[in-house]
Structure formats: structure tokens, C-alpha cells
């Protein structure tokens, strides 16, 4: 009997790709993200960029500040693949080292924004009431200033420098993470099982750690990814103006700024750092989009 049962036997497992809702488990999320081709490619590109920057001392053919005046402003040559700048420094080498500085700076700004915005968002969403109102209005006020201009004003007070610039950016970006976190917290807070566990006296930190944080993580992650792109652009803008990274240290923005001075003779000098920034920014944005799509179901699921 059992040997001959043909078409009636169900297939051993449902086809995984089209299964409607695999639930909030990791594999489902990762598969959805991986299937989003632009996002996946962006992740790979970004990984290459980050690794190359970290390994700069190993890969780079020259020292970043090695000056070679006779060969200044050279175009692409076998010695200098991407040419040299006005002091004869190797552009490829400097791009790698600058990548470290720029990516680190962006990461620092976003880390500060996260460290400020997320806890306050949790607090506002969880406690509600006057605290929520006050923090919310404070965020509104901060959001009234365009990021770069507020950063410049803060730098005007504290003095230029990479760290000051990034702290300034971190403060400016904090309200966005605050809002995202607060909204997600409010949503979880309103669910019946959370209300129930609050009413039976479960300590707040337990509820936040077990229930709130997992739900807050998704939107925060999306926001962080998009914000890294913005921070990268802002760092470049500030450094370009001479308010961020201070030469001779290279960042992509610094390279753009000094390259622009030579744009009539050696336009390639602004080309490469611009491409580097654009590629990194595009990657962060695409990863953000991919995360949003991959996490979307879960975020929406928390709604009712």
C-alpha cells in the first residue's frame, strides 16, 4: 500500500521561496534581504570598501603623506594608478586612508546619535506623559535647524576638528532616531500582553529588554543605515569647508576640497573621492531599502 501512493503524497516541504509568512525568525529575514539584489550587491561592495580601508597600510603602495613634488598632479601612470595630487601624493593611497577616516567619522556620528536618541526614545515611548511631550518638543526644535548649519554653529562654539564635527552631527541626528524608537516603543507598549505584564508588576527593564528592544531594533537598523549615508555626506561637506578633518590627514571630503583647487588642471582629483563617497552612500541607502523591505513584514505585523 504505502509503496504505491503516487501523487497523493504531499511534497516533503513547502517550496521555501514562496512560503507566505515564515515568521519573525532570522533565516526568513536573511533570505528576504539576500533576494533583494541591489541591497545584497550593496552589502558586498560596502564590505569590500570597509575591508580595503581597514587594510590600507597593507594594500597601499605609498605612505599617505609621502610627498613627491616632481611628480605632482600626474595622471594615471604605472607608478600611480589614479595619479597624484598637488604635492605629488599618491591618490590611490590617500583614497584608502581617507576611507578609514570618513567611514569612522560617519560611524562615530551615528553612534552618538544612537546613544542619545534610542534611550531617550525608549524613555519617551515607555513613560509617556510630560516626559514624552518635553522630549518630543526638544526634538522638534533640534529638527528646525538644517543639519549642516547647526553643526557649523556648534563648531563655531567648540572650534573645528573631526571630533567636534562628529559630535555636532550626532546631536543633530539624534532626534530622528528618537522619533523612530519612540514610535516603535509606543506600538509595543500598547499591545495587550505588554499591558498585562506591566499590570502584574514585571519590572520595566525586563519588559524593555524582552519585548520592546527586539521590536525597536528593526526600524532603528533601517534608520541607522540611511543615516550613515547622510553622515558620510555631511562629514565630506564639513571637511570640504575645512571644518571637519584638518589636513594633512585625508578624508574623502578633504581630498575633494583640495582637489577642487586644481580642477582646471587635474579634474581627476575631484573625480575619485566623489566616486568613493557616492558608492558608499549609495550602498548605505540600498542596504537601508533592503532592510526596510526585508523587515517590513515584521514591522507591520507589530501594528494591530
Amino acid at each position, binding site marked *: 500500500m504505502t509503496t504505491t501512493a503516487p501523487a497523493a503524497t504531499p511534497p516533503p516541504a513547502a517550496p521555501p521561496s514562496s512560503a507566505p509568512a515564515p515568521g519573525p525568525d532570522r533565516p526568513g529575514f536573511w533570505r528576504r534581504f539576500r533576494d533583494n539584489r*541591489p541591497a545584497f550587491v550593496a552589502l558586498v561592495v560596502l564590505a569590500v570598501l570597509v575591508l580595503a580601508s581597514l587594510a590600507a597600510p597593507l594594500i597601499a603602495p605609498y605612505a599617505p603623506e609621502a610627498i613627491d613634488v616632481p611628480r605632482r598632479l600626474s595622471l594615471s601612470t604605472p607608478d600611480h594608478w589614479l595619479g597624484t595630487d598637488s604635492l605629488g601624493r599618491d591618490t590611490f593611497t590617500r583614497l584608502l586612508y581617507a576611507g578609514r577616516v570618513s567611514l569612522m567619522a560617519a560611524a562615530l556620528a551615528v553612534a552618538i546619535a544612537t546613544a542619545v536618541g534610542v534611550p531617550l526614545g525608549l524613555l519617551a515611548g515607555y513613560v509617556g506623559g510630560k516626559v514624552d511631550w518635553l522630549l518630543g518638543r526638544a526634538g522638534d526644535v533640534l529638527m528646525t535647524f*538644517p543639519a549642516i548649519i547647526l553643526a557649523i554653529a556648534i563648531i563655531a562654539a567648540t572650534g573645528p576638528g573631526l571630533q567636534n564635527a562628529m559630535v555636532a552631527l550626532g546631536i543633530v541626528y539624534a532626534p530622528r532616531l528618537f522619533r523612530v524608537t519612540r514610535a516603535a516603543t509606543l506600538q509595543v507598549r500598547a499591545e495587550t500582553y505588554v499591558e498585562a505584564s506591566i499590570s502584574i508588576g514585571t519590572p520595566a527593564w525586563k519588559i524593555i529588554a524582552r519585548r520592546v528592544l527586539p521590536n525597536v531594533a528593526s526600524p532603528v537598523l533601517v534608520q541607522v543605515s540611511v543615516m550613515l549615508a547622510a553622515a558620510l555626506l555631511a562629514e565630506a561637506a564639513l571637511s570640504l569647508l575645512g571644518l571637519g578633518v584638518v589636513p594633512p590627514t585625508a578624508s574623502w571630503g578633504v581630498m*575633494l576640497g583640495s582637489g*577642487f583647487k586644481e580642477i582646471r588642471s587635474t579634474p581627476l582629483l*575631484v573625480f575619485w573621492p*566623489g566616486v568613493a563617497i557616492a558608492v558608499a552612500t549609495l550602498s548605505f541607502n540600498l542596504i537601508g531599502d533592503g532592510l526596510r523591505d526585508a523587515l517590513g513584514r515584521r514591522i507591520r505585523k507589530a501594528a494591530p
Partner: protein
Amino acid sequence: MLGLLARRLAFTVPMLVVVSFCVFSLIVLVPGDPAVALAGENPDPEQIAAVRERLGLDDPFLVQFWHWFSGVLQGDLGQSLFSSQSVAAAVFSRLPATLSLALLSLAVALVLGVAVGVLAAMRPGTWIDRVATFAASLGVAVPYFWVGMILVLLFAINLTIFPAVGYVPLTENPLQWFLHLFLPATALGLAPAAVIARQTRAGMTGVLREDYVRTATAKGLPPARVVGQHALKNAAVPVVTAFGLEASRLIGGTVVIEQLFALPGLGNLAYTSVFARDFPMVQGVLLVVAALVLLINLLVDLSYGYFNPRIRQS
């Protein structure tokens, strides 16, 4: 509509006061004694005392704020630390260039963004849509200041169609005004155009499926009016929201673009004042910019009432 205006003003006016307070409080961030820090390189005691006197740093903080703020209410933003110029005069002399640049960029962003978004939404899944979506992703990611540099290279250095630097007031010569602003406005407008295009496409894709769009076609309206009037007005609210956020970001971008193109605007004033550590001047710029953003937000909010009659009447 008046009710909506009143409600929004009730929000905006207190915001302005708080924003002013924040702007003034920035001086707290100055490390050490502000008078020493702001008095320039190697100041002698008299210079320090002069700054202290000028900023009234010996008064209690709230008194200092009140002095400054009551001046602001009368249009007096204080004095420059290093020249005899009043901050208000400096700011208002710089305003036309920045407003010109910002408005032109926003026009570029709106026209280009809506056009691309609508086209993509009308032909979802086609090559038009794919090209538009790709261009929008790129437009958001590519740094505007880099676009500015490349535009200078292509159209000012290689082709010499547009001037690379400088500004001519609109009242002096409208054509030159436009020619001088064309490259910077394009550079600044492309990224917001991309954001607006995305938002427009998303909104229009939904709206074009609505029954009332079919009704409009069934009436005999030509497609341009079906899409441009009946559909677009319904897709407008999220587009306008994006427009408002982008406007604020774009005003930030004027600082960098004004440097690249040597435009004598507010951003340029902020820039030079930061290096000179002319603190009252920085505060003045910051306050005016924030007021500008609040004004844009107010206009955006009011436009909701126009696009969605339900908001107006609730």
C-alpha cells in the same frame, strides 16, 4: 483655512521663541571663558574685557538672553564682534543670494522630481520606470557638492556655457542672475528631485488605480489633465511633506554650494564668521535660517489644507 492657519501659528510662534533661546544658548558650548575664546588670537586683557562687556557676559544667563531677545524682537540681532557692522544688516544683505539659490534649486527639484515620478508611475515596470528608479537612487546618493564640481568642470571650464563663480542680483540683470545660479541650483536641486521623484512615483502609483481617475477619463478629459490635475492633487500630500524636509536640507546645502561657486549668501557669511569666531554673527545666521525653515514648514502645513479638504475642515 483661517482656522488651520491659526492652529499652525499657535505652534510656530512658541517654536520661534524656543529656537531663539537655543540659538542664544549655543554660547554655553564655548569651552572655558567665552570672552577669552572669542577675543581672537593671543588677546590682551583689554580685548577680553571688551568682548565680555560687549556680550554682557557678567550678567546672569537669562538676563543676557533677554537683552539679546528683546533686541531680536525689534529686528536688532546685535553687533559683529570684529567690525562695526550690525548683524541684521549683514544678514539681510546676504539674504537675496541665498533665497535666489534656494528657490531656484527647489524649483528644479519640484519640476524635475514630479515629472520623473509621474512618468514612472504612468508606466510601471517599463524601462522608463526602471531608468527613473535607478536615477533616483543615484540622485539621492551622489554628493551635491561633487555634482557642483563636475558641473563646473563640464559647463564652465570645458564648455564655458555658464560662469563658474559669482552672483548678479536679479534686480540688476535677470538673465545674468539666472546664468550665474543655474549650475549651483542644479547641483543643489538634483538630490531633492530624486527624493521627490520617489515619493511622487509611490503616491501616484496608488492614486492612478483609484476609481475617480477612471471617472475623470470617462468624462473625456485628456490624459494630461487626468494625471496632472485629478491624480496629482491626491498624491500631493506626501510629496509636499518630502518637499518640506528636503527644503530644510537644501538650505543647509547652500553653505557648501555658496563656497564652491563664490556666492555672497548667508552660508558664506556663516562660513567666514565661523572662522573669525564672530559669534553674534553666527547666531544671527542660525536664527534667520531656523525662521526660514519654520516658515517653510508652516507653508507646507497650510498646503495640506489645499490638497486635502478634509484636513481644512476638521
